[in-house]
């Protein structure tokens, strides 16, 4: 089999210090289905984006059929015969299937007249050639997500691509729609097309692919023939050596239930259930970790707790009080929230540091206002900023400096400081150390444990298993909107948790 695409020595760094890809080399054979797997942040998407011309590599080269190539934008990639189907479908819902497919390659007659008849015929021909079972005249808005995905594929086939890159194709499909997609992909492969697909789901990888490459933390963990691979083997390659992570927690007995969710259900505007029957409890003095591959309901859980989304049913209680539908300010009296989304949820980036620090405090703490809460006491605010700076080791010039002048690590420290200094006994942490350097991560972890020692209760959502194992007293695992496991950290293993994350069930079953 011929190597159709070779990627050699690819490096990619996102400033200031995030190494996304570290000397990655791999090749793809013509007429194969090649899966690329790895955890979040392993570099899978970045690697494909570089191939597709959406991002430039910092070092390394790419060969297509032996010739060195570099695409500056996806258009060039498509012309060379490589097409990518993204996770978020990029179609025009108001247009029909054929209109979407021919856009950019429309057949015309005299005077730019759109030759609709020919266009429809051409699209119909392609549909039949690849057995895609689509009606060229149906409006994309009326199609199911699976069908829309087919239209995206059709669009690329219409441009005669021979290589198809699929980014998490099953993440938008229901389990019933998956076999159809696989059938189509296998047909394409038998036809001579090359398919690369990025995935988390090991079952699917084993069923569909010919070969599979595993990436871990930006590096190549290995490539193997699928027939030689096992789920446990792959899982291990993905998360790292089987190590009992050193717990750095002291013995600490948890106390009363501080925070409780009962029978929570949330369905989104597309009628897709995102949270199903969520039940959990957090006691004072304990850290409850929530593991799970991103996209399995964690975002919705956070948003429902904080009040940005309204659940269809269920009750959220903090210190015994039903806070499910209370105004957000009321919730904040009982919940501190450290978000992963620094730019949008965690901070007001263009504003000054002090202005960021006193948010919420300004309403909950009389210290910062005069005249019955009407006028801000900037003197106290600045002082408070100084206190946060000391307690959380923030490198900054002054509170008057703009928030955006801080490095990522320091920004997160400020956010952490603001939230932890609220007197709320329950803390919701969502990927609190994402994008931070090792030193900052250590620091944040120490602070989290200090809160535990002070009898505060925490729900820690994280994609970093190492972090979860270090900090949590027990671990919940989320899979497709449900909690599928509740494991004591000391009694479980990375492999077991990893399995629950990927499969939704234990590996004995």
């Amino acid at each position, binding site marked *: 089999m011929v190597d159709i695409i070779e990627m050699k020595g690819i490096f990619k760094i996102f400033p200031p210090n995030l190494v996304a890809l570290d000397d990655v080399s791999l090749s793809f054979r013509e007429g194969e289905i090649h899966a690329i797997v790895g955890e979040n942040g392993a570099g899978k998407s970045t690697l494909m984006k570089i191939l597709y011309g959406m991002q430039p590599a910092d070092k390394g080269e790419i060969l297509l059929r032996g010739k060195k190539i570099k695409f500056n934008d996806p258009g060039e990639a498509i012309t060379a015969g490589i097409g990518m189907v993204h996770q978020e479908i*990029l179609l*025009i819902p108001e*247009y029909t299937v054929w209109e979407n497919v021919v*856009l950019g390659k*429309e057949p015309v007659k005299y005077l730019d*007249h*759109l030759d609709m008849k020919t266009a429809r015929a051409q699209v119909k021909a392609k549909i039949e050639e690849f057995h895609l079972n689509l009606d060229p005249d149906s409006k994309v808005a009326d199609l199911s997500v699976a069908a829309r995905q087919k239209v995206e594929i059709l669009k690329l086939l219409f441009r005669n691509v021979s290589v198809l890159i699929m980014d998490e194709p099953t993440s938008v499909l229901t389990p019933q729609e998956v076999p159809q997609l696989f059938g189509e992909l296998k047909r394409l492969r038998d036809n001579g097309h090359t398919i690369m697909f990025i995935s988390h789901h090991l079952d699917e990888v084993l069923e569909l692919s010919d070969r599979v490459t595993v990436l871990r933390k930006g590096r190549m963990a290995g490539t193997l023939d699928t027939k030689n691979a096992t789920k446990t083997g792959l899982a291990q390659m993905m998360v790292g050596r089987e190590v009992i992570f050193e717990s750095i927690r002291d013995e600490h007995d948890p106390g009363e239930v501080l925070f409780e969710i009962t029978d929570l259900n949330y369905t989104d*505007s597309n009628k897709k259930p995102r949270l199903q029957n969520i039940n959990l409890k957090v006691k004072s003095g304990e850290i409850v970790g929530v593991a799970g591959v991103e996209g399995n309901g964690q975002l919705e859980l956070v948003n429902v707790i904080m009040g940005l989304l309204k659940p269809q049913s269920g009750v959220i209680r903090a210190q015994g009080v039903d806070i499910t539908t209370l105004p957000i300010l009321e919730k904040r009296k009982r919940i501190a929230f450290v978000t992963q989304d620094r730019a949008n949820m965690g901070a007001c980036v263009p504003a000054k540091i002090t202005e960021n620090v006193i948010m919420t405090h300004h309403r909950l703490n009389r210290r910062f206002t005069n005249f019955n809460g009407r006028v801000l006491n900037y003197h106290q605010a600045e002082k408070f900023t100084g206190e946060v700076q000391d307690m959380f080791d923030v490198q900054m010039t002054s509170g008057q400096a703009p928030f955006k002048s801080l490095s990522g690590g320091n920004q997160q420290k400020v956010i952490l400081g603001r939230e932890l200094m609220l007197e709320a006994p329950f803390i919701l942490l969502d990927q609190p150390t994402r994008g931070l350097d090792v030193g900052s991560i250590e620091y944040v972890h120490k602070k989290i444990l200090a809160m535990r020692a002070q009898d505060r209760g925490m729900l820690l959502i994280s994609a970093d298993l190492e972090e979860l194992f270090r900090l949590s007293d027990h671990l919940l695992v989320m899979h497709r909107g449900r909690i599928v496991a509740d494991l004591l950290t000391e009694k479980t293993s990375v492999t077991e948790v990893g399995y629950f994350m990927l499969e939704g069930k234990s590996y004995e079953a």
Partner: protein
Amino acid sequence: MMKIIIGLINGMLASATPILLSALGGSLTFYAGIFNIAMEGMMLGGAFFAVLGSYYFHSWVIGILFAILGSILMALIFILFAVVLKMDEFITGIGLNLLALGSTTYMLRQIFNVKGMFASTEIVSIPKVDIPLIRNIPIVGEILSGHNLVVYLTALAVLVVYYLVFKTRFGLRLRAAGYNRTCLDTSGVSANRVRVISLIICGVLCGLAGSFLSLGVVTGFTEGMSAGKGWISLAAVILVSGSPTGIALISLLFGFTDGLGLFMQQSMPPQFTEMVPYVATLIALFVYSIRLKKKSLSTGVL
């Protein structure tokens, strides 16, 4: 009685013309996804340059040509700031409208040495057209024939714009740019290019509308003579969400209320009929927002 009705209808067609033309231009930019509020300025610029061209060259053809070129110039300025420099489209539009107002008034002073208004027998206005056989048909003939040339061009423009938007390759791409720019870009077509072209065509149409104001309805240029017609055409575009046929109907309605207002000055103060397009826009926005709200209520988003 008949005479009055015929008069009303003819008046309606004449009043509707400048609104309809610039609204058609607005329709194109609307479909392209541009928030274009500069029709007022482009029309005013067109009106001025029309007089300029007609006066110095003693020809209404040159007048129309100058109007179109002048309007295109304004469109290019819009493009420079909003597309190239990526400035906010609204601010650019406001700036352009003010620039048009200021510079036409300035040039009125500098070039013609008058303030307020310039009229002269040297200016050649756009002629009316008498269609040979039709004009003899009773009633219908009096409506269909005898209008200013631009009125007929406008009717043609409606068809042309409709064809352009819905039947050509350009139109497919134009609407795609408005629906989803990124999708168009990744399909290999520059969304920016499409937007720029839509702005230029808008310039052409607004220029023509302007020339009708200063060389058709009256002959001569008055400071600020676009007098809110650009805003009315914006209201028209918003009300029908860009549809050319919808715009044609709405413009006729606006033109009708214009004429009707004059007629009804006994029973209803003219200022209230002036308000109609704006109130209508508010009502349309209300209906639109209610519909949107109903949709989101079923999804649980706070």
